[in-house]
């Protein structure tokens, strides 16, 4: 036992040593800084992106996560729901067809937060200005979302009738298969008894 442990540890050390040597060789061959030319690693791409336009810079780190999304004025997030079948219909599909088949009853009053990814106005220099601008700009869209959500008065958490029928069908099929397995086993038991 001890021997195998020792040999395992030794193997591990050798493995890491080889790994380090390979890394060192790679660095020596490629050289510092050359990696940017080869693959345009993180910093170069991030640098070009922030220079380029508001979409990319807004959408990532600063605005979207830290300042806007979390620390905004969202006074009353009422509920998060999903799996929704609408009792009252809603014509504005674009506001509702969000990911994962789910919907949220949101804030009645949202001065939030969201980054305007479609903004063409990239001249804004200051991030804070950007946030303020975005908040103002977004209010309209958000308001239309809220209006659309208010149109549907009740959201049910049940599946559709078709899905339930399908599930019942699958269960019936499972019952039939299990029944067949029990029958086969019964026959096998009988055979064994007869052989004895």
């Amino acid at each position, binding site marked *: 036992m001890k021997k*195998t442990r020792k040999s395992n540890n030794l193997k591990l050390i050798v493995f890491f040593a080889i790994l380090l040597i390979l890394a060192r060789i790679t660095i020596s061959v490629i050289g510092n800084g050359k990696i940017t030319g080869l693959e345009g690693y993180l910093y170069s791409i991030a640098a070009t992106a922030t220079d380029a336009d508001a979409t990319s810079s807004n959408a990532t780190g600063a605005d979207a996560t830290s300042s806007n999304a979390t620390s905004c004025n969202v006074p009353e997030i009422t509920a998060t729901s999903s799996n929704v079948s609408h009792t009252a219909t809603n014509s504005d599909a674009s506001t509702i067809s969000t990911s994962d088949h789910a919907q949220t009853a949101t804030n009645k009053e949202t001065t939030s937060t969201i980054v305007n*990814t479609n903004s063409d106005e990239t001249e804004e220099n200051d991030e804070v200005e950007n946030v303020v601008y975005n908040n103002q700009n977004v209010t309209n869209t958000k308001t239309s979302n809220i209006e659309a959500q208010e149109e549907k008065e009740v959201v049910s958490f049940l599946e559709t009738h078709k899905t339930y029928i399908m599930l019942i069908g699958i269960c019936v099929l499972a019952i039939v298969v299990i029944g067949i397995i029990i029958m086969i086993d019964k026959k096998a038991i009988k055979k064994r008894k007869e052989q004895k």
Partner: protein
Amino acid sequence: MYQDGIGTHNVSFMGTIGNIAFISAMFCILFTVSFASFVFLDEPKKYKIVHLLSIFEGFFIFIIINVLGGRVAFLSVFALLIPFIITNSKRLSRTIIAISSIVLGLAINIIINPEYHYDIGKLRLCFQFNGTALAFLVIVAIFWSLAYILYKRNFDLSRNKKIIFGIYIGMLVMVLLVCLVIYLINFNTGILYEIHELLHGNFDDDFGTYRVFLWKRAFLLLPEYPILGTGPDTFAVRFMEKYTEDIAALGELTINDTAANVYITMLINIGVVGLTTYLISIILQLITGIKNRNGYSKVLLIAMICYMIQDMFNLWVVIVTPIFWALMAIHALSIEKNKEEK
């Protein structure tokens, strides 16, 4: 992925985990462990009850959150386990009990009928008892009787490789037949419609709740930096910049910071080298896990596979992914004993 912006359901926190996709990811670990322990381990009754309660409660919530990626993962893992379940009477009996608890959850959901009322801003229970609920309750009763009959039987063919292989072939044929039916018949609704269209080569952007939109475009980013990618978490920067107009067309506030597929996101962020390294590491662990499996490691292995499958439709988040890494570590530790004994 924030289709139509931050501020909707996708950043609302549910419990302490996060949005529904993160909950689904977490459930893929937790409930697979409970399910596999309940079915495969011969533990004392008190543990069985705890696992059964966990399955019931978990799937009840899962029915409500309704994340397709999680469902696909559970079903895939269940399909992989079917040959080892139906060839053993005890396992089959326990599986039926577990499934009946899920069906019971469906019935209870119909009976309590939770509804969210926007006008009063409250969730209400609008009790009802209809034919569907009755059908589910009848099914539960039948399931329990079948489970009882099977519990009294004593067959175990799970070590017969020929039978297991035969069942897998049979299942494959069935899957192909189902695909053929979906190919020929247009169900006009839901996931079946999407599969029908995909089989006809129509990769519409909004399929898979916009995952097709992301995957199609993400692959086009690969040739730019194929080997090492552009670094961790750079997907959003590149994707948003390149497809600004397409994204805006989905909704003005849309943000796409991942490909909604861990492997594709890795491919873009850390390139072929990074993804291959990751895949090699998990494949090696899977192979070692299968070779040196024991009762407990089997349970963890099943949970790992389930999580890896749901990764195809999800993203890594700091609240769930470390649990996956911990799971892998515990699994590695659990098979170490077997290796030493050998």
